[in-house]
């Protein structure tokens, strides 16, 4: 009886011990190794840029002027209307005609005196401004309307003076409109005066004028300061630094389970991507992405899938 109890107790202990042993061997992670994830160097274009504003503007604005004293009889256009050269814009009736009426015509019809003078458009574009209504009295030389020349619509880039040296690498720029649309533009000449307050100079960006773009639209330009088309890029997470950010390093796998510290020099930094200038890493070298913080120079790690 007693022996059987002892035996059963022993059995219970043994099974418990077996269970315990199994659970400890289930641990996948080896003792003292830090779980990490890895990444590789990617070769790609990376640039350091400044975001600048460019405002759309008509360089050429033509004024349509009255050619005689008289009354504005007809206004044939509306504000914003697109017009071409020679389009009839206004009809003016001279004040003589207004006061005499048809008397001259009655006297002698060979005078062909109608008293009406029509004003035609001097160019292509849009009516930007209309100053008078029908029936208004106007004098000789008064501005009746302003026409913005569509072909002269450009973007004016407000460029801080100290960024002038990077102009050569920014001959063609991408303008991002507020709706997200991107259009290409070419930086041409500069206007000769600076803005006194913001110390910027206006540069003319010519664009393809097939689109109708309103005046005074603010577009954004990524003005490139530095560019490397074949940079060795690493995510920012992979790079470690000391407390005062005077030294930078990455942890590189030297074999399947050891990571060593390699000091690096950074180049361009844009968003989450950082260019590694030196040393030269090959694309198949494994570099620690996470789990790298606080690791000693030679650390035992285990790569997580």
């Amino acid at each position, binding site marked *: 009886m007693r022996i059987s109890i002892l035996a059963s107790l022993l059995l219970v202990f043994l099974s418990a011990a077996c269970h315990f042993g199994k659970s400890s061997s289930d641990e996948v992670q080896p003792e003292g190794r830090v779980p990490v994830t890895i990444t590789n160097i990617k070769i790609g274009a990376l640039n350091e840029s400044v975001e600048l504003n460019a405002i759309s503007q008509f360089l050429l604005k033509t004024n349509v002027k009255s050619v005689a004293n008289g009354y504005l009889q007809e206004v044939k256009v509306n504000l914003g209307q697109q017009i071409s050269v020679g389009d009839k814009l206004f009809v003016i009736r001279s004040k003589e005609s207004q006061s005499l009426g048809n008397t001259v015509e009655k006297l002698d019809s060979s005078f062909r005196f109608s008293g009406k003078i029509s004003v035609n458009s001097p160019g292509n574009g849009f009516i930007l401004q209309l100053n008078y209504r029908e029936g208004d009295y106007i004098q000789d030389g008064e501005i009746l309307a302003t026409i913005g020349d569509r072909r002269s619509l450009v973007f004016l880039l407000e460029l801080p003076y100290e960024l002038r040296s990077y102009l050569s690498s920014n001959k063609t720029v991408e303008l991002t409109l507020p709706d997200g649309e991107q259009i290409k533009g070419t930086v041409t000449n500069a206007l000769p005066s600076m803005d006194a*307050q913001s110390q*910027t100079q206006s540069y003319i960006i010519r664009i393809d004028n097939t689109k109708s773009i309103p005046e005074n639209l603010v577009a954004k330009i990524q003005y490139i300061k530095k560019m490397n088309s074949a940079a060795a890029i690493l995510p920012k997470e992979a790079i470690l630094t*000391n407390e*005062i950010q005077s030294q930078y390093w990455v942890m590189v796998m030297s074999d399947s389970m050891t990571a060593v510290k390699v000091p690096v020099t950074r180049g361009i930094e844009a968003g989450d991507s950082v260019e590694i200038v030196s040393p030269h890493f090959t694309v198949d070298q494994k570099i620690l992405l996470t789990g790298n913080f606080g690791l000693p120079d030679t650390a035992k790690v285990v790569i997580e899938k």
Partner: protein
Amino acid sequence: MKSFFTAHKNALSVVIALILMGGGFTYSILQTSLFPEITFPKIKIIADAGQQPVDQMMMTVTRPLELAIKKVPDLKVLRSSTSRGSCEISAFMDWKTDINLSQQRIESKISEIRASLPPELQIAVERMNPSILPVIGYTLEGKGRSPIELKYLANFTIKPFLSQVEGVSEIRIIGGKEKEYWVELNISKISSLGLTPEIIKNTLNETGFVRSNGYLNDYRRLYLTITDALGRNKMELENLVVSNTGKRVILMKDIATVEIREAKEYIKVNANGKENLLIAVIKQPNTNLIELTEKMRLKLIDLQKTLPSDIVIKPYYIQADFVNESIRSVTDSLWIGLFLAIVVAILFLRSFKASATILFTIPVTICLTLIVLYSMGQTLNIMTLGAIAAAIGLIIDDAIVVVEQIQRTHEEHPYEKSTTLVQKAIRFLCHGRVLFEHHRYFSPFPVDDRSCRCLFQGDDQCHDCHTGLLVFCHLDGTACHLSVADFGEGKTLQSK
């Protein structure tokens, strides 16, 4: 008729056993510390005014404070030291005054003149108590690690962990460096853009906040919203918008360079000859020093498992060691004295009975002393231990003399009854010599050498002590006052 002692010998044995057990028990529960829990009649006023120059500090802060505190009744001595941006005033009060009342009086006098002091001034008024001094000190070393890194590690890893130990009132980190972001303005650029440092300061003040916007209800879901304008890294600080004129967005990096540097520290902390950190453990007033030290030691072993292997934490000062040493010296003197007394009794009196008397008398006396100490609310500290050590010497000395005298009288009058015999012996002894000996001082036991270097140097102050202890002692043969003063975190902290 039997005598009282023989008639009640069983009851008396029980009483003796009870006293012995009681003494043993009280010894185990008695608080142990270096100094008695005494609040000294000294109040310290520390004023901090940033980076104000010394002369200005003297005129605008120290003088007015001194004049105000001088009006407090029972003030004995007022001593102050002014340095760049800070001033420390020690007000020594009369021993008889209520120190809490004096503190309140000083505080109220300071608040009366608060309006005339510089607005950014911070004033702390504290009472002096041995518990505000560290009981354990550690050095923190990390080879190749910057002072900033070590301070961060100490503040965010070590401090919270060690604070978990029961009875710890504060873990103080001394030394190391803070991290600072430096924005260096380019004067020519800011002047040409029409900016002033004031504008930039305002811009910086207006950013860097987290504010609650309350709740937001959307699709029957409730969201708690915040505005988070905190700058999280150097890049965000560099890209801070200083001004936006429409034509141009001026960022911080356009007009200034941003750098991360070590903050300037006016206190230099060296440990083991290098710039390292010190960790000081301050205990709560009613905590047992020995227990706390042991718990701290175990906690430190646990901590070292989680720290990087190159971080070394070494103790440089353990107050419990001195206390343990004092206790050991007392026990040593007890055992040696007891042993010698018995040897003397056996050798010269050739009587086992006489030596057995000594063997019982001394432990019973000491156990009674411990019980009385406990009931009086005293602790085991260098004061009480010193007294016990001195007393043990006296007891043993006297015990031998008395026993020897009784033995001699007994040999002279072998048929005398014991009651008259003892009376005769003692009467003779009293004529013969005065038992009491004066001036048994603290020389038989060791004291904490560094903190009490000047214990016996009269009234001289000691500026040299490492925990900033100022110990001075009046030795006039009858009374011994020990007062301890704190010099704060001193200007030149040094360890061994």
